[in-house]
């Protein structure tokens, strides 16, 4: 066991974890933030995407200890109280989800995409979503939601 200290959605956390504990399991099982999902076992689906020090990463492919002393944002940290984040709002308005399983990762990826690209077109969004799989929507409305959100942000 080793001590991990970090800040998650603005809250400081200090806890002992097993060295082999994955960040996603730390977030879900130890911190009870179950918005971040595990959709595969092969680092491909992107349902577990969170931001570590402002960068989108797959929390299933990172150890909790690697995130020591970092600042993490999960899907739970985006909204401002009752007010949805513009990307969350855009997914709701544009029917950017069906079953919703991939949505936390999609939205965390989308925020990162919008932060890095001042102008977004459909081609760029589709390329940027390489690491996020959705089995329901065919991506049409996800792409639409991200472009709509980028215009508002």
């Amino acid at each position, binding site marked *: 066991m*080793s001590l991990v200290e970090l800040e998650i959605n603005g809250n400081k956390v200090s806890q002992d974890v*097993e*060295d*082999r504990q*994955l960040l996603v399991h730390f977030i879900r099982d130890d911190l009870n933030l179950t918005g971040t999902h595990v959709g595969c*076992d*092969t*680092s491909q689906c*992107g349902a577990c*995407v969170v931001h570590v020090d402002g*960068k*989108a*990463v*797959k929390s*299933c*492919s*990172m*150890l909790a*200890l*690697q995130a*020591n002393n970092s600042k993490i944002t999960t899907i739970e940290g985006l909204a401002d109280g009752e007010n949805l984040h513009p990307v969350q709002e855009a997914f709701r308005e544009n029917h950017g989800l069906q079953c919703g399983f991939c949505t936390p990762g999609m939205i965390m*990826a989308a925020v*990162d*995409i919008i932060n890095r690209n001042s102008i977004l077109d459909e081609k760029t969004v589709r390329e*940027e979503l*390489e*690491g*996020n799989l959705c089995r329901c929507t065919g991506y049409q409305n996800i792409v639409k939601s991200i472009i709509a959100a980028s215009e508002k942000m």
Partner: protein
Amino acid sequence: MYQFNYKKVETVQEAVNELSANPESKILAGGMTIIPTMKQRLASPEQLIDIRNIEELNFIREESNNIIIGSTTNHFTVSSSDLIKEKIPSLSMLAEGIGDPHVRNMGTIGGAISNNDPTADYPAACLGLGAKIKTSKRDLTAEEFFVSLFETALEEDEIVISISFPIIKNSFYMKFPNPASRYAMAGVFISKNESDVRVAVTGASENGVFRWNEMEESLSNDWSKSSVENVKLSPEGIMSDIHGSSEYRANLANIMAIRAFEGINE
């Protein structure tokens, strides 16, 4: 994942000491290969030595007509570096095509070449540009460094410090990604530095990345599209699996070579 000890180090010397003290240790840089591999229980090191925060390994700089990249520099940093975009645009483009954005935020150039996955992109750039690899012990040419499938010249207690790429603007990389995994089924890197032509192929050979000598000769004699088209890669020694036969992959390499050549001349 099996149990292991996690050890974070701050200096190269510390990393090397840990490796020497415990030969069952593995280096953890970005972790984009080793962690998924350990999750599948395909690897079970006793200790992971985390070098991601060694500051002296995280840099990009220009030095006497070379771009030198520190080994823990991640793919996103390489692909978004204005210096690399200006000096070796093909390298920037190659980095942008690795994995996905989340993987590029973690995966490192040193990790990619030390793993020497036969379908990885960076080894093609190293051989294709004639890079030099500086380790904690010595300087190696790319030819010396890459030995075979998942095998490099690195000794048990040796780590990569930096990779030095000659600035060659006339260079291009083209790969055919597997439609599902997006790993290269064949990738060809071509560079032309005055009369010196280098052609490296990744994703295809059973022995990992290699220099395509016949193509290099053909292009050195006559830098033209027909010179590329006239050379055909032999399917002998080319990987054959459910994704494609060796004949199919060899043909992909031929096509990628044509496209890479066209990319340079565009």
